[in-house]
């Protein structure tokens, strides 16, 4: 009735103004704590020398864009998935293909290696996350042993065997408490979609790569962005990021086919790596930090060290 509708509108208006007040308060608090930039704190840290990083292995075999990859804990096996519908497990030392599974769909956008090394998970346009136990028995059909572990309402874009605590969605990066299912912190400073997020090794911060051609570092305890990694000459989006073991280096793959290596503390670029012949779509540092692997729309994966 009319009086009810009026009451609803008052409540809505008062809630909206409360929301605005809270947002203002949050900004104020964040600004108060912003007493310095990360690169200023790192001014007297010794600059990094020249880096010699080259492609040490090229993994060829996919028939279409490589969309995702993950390392096995054994530091040598790699699982990769592609738009060709295949998921391949490689021995990166020898470049041999150890397993290959054909998914019932194309665009396998996500794949992950189980910590035990005995299985892989993958999914994509089939809206499912399937787990395949890895077997070396030639008589066993890997596809026959697959188990579906999750049904989503839309395509699977990422999967991981450990609880993934973060999600980049649109321009916002959100940090979730997996126990309560609540979003505990949100950061919205990127000017375009965020394509990749990765925790800093200490767990106190995370980096993001975005279509706005920048990578950014957010500190969870300071609750704000503390560094931007960008250059005027870099105009294409960053698709994937990962840290070196100490967190000093940030490797970022871009849509202009290059990989930029950033000094996380000083905010400067220390190296630019060429080699891929199309967009870099995925990038992960190996578990022991001796190398990193990049996957590309050029159908290949490259291991760099």
């Amino acid at each position, binding site marked *: 009735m009319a009086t009810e*509708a009026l009451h*609803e*509108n008052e*409540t*809505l208006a008062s*809630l*909206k103004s*409360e*929301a605005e007040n*809270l*947002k203002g*308060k*949050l900004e104020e*608090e964040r600004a108060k*704590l912003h*007493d*310095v*930039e*990360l690169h200023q*704190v790192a001014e007297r*840290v010794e600059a*990094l020398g020249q*880096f*010699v*990083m080259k492609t*040490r*292995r090229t993994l060829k075999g996919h028939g279409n864009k490589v969309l995702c990859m993950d390392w096995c804990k054994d530091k*040598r096996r790699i699982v990769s998935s592609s738009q060709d519908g295949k998921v391949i497990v490689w021995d*990166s*030392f020898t470049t041999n293909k150890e397993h290959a599974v054909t998914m019932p769909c194309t665009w396998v956008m996500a794949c992950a290696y189980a910590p035990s090394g005995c299985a892989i998970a993958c999914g994509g346009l089939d809206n499912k996350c399937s787990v395949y136990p890895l077997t070396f028995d030639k008589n066993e059909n890997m596809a026959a042993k697959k188990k579906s572990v999750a049904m989503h309402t839309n395509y699977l874009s990422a999967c991981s065997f450990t609880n993934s605590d973060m999600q980049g969605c649109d321009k916002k990066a959100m940090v979730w408490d997996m126990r309560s299912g*609540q*979003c*505990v*912190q949100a950061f919205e400073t990127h000017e375009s979609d965020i394509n990749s997020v990765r925790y*800093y*090794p*200490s767990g*106190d*911060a995370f980096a993001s790569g975005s279509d706005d051609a920048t990578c950014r570092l957010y*500190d969870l*305890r*300071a*609750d*704000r962005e*503390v560094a931007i990694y960008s250059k005027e000459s870099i105009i294409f989006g960053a698709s994937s990021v990962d840290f*070196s*073991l*100490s*967190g*000093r*280096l940030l490797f970022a793959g871009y849509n202009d086919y290059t990989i930029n290596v950033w000094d*996380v*503390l000083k905010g400067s670029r220390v190296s630019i790596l060429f080699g891929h012949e199309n967009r870099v779509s995925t990038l992960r*540092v190996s578990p*022991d*930090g*001796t*190398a990193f692997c990049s996957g590309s729309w050029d159908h290949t994966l490259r*291991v760099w*060290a």
Partner: protein
Amino acid sequence: ISGSSSVASMKKVVQQLQLEAGLNSVKVSQAAADLKQFSLQNAQHDPLLTGVSSSTNPFRPQKVCSFL
């Protein structure tokens, strides 16, 4: 009716903001100092940073053996 669902979703937004506003944050100078310390302390254990010799990095080319 659309009215009540807007109120409900607005309530959620306010609750979320209250949660975020309640966080106790540290100053950037402190947080940045901690990040710096972590990286410097772990630098020597970072193979991609320090560079690892060919003999220990399985990906770097090893000395070539030739048949005599």
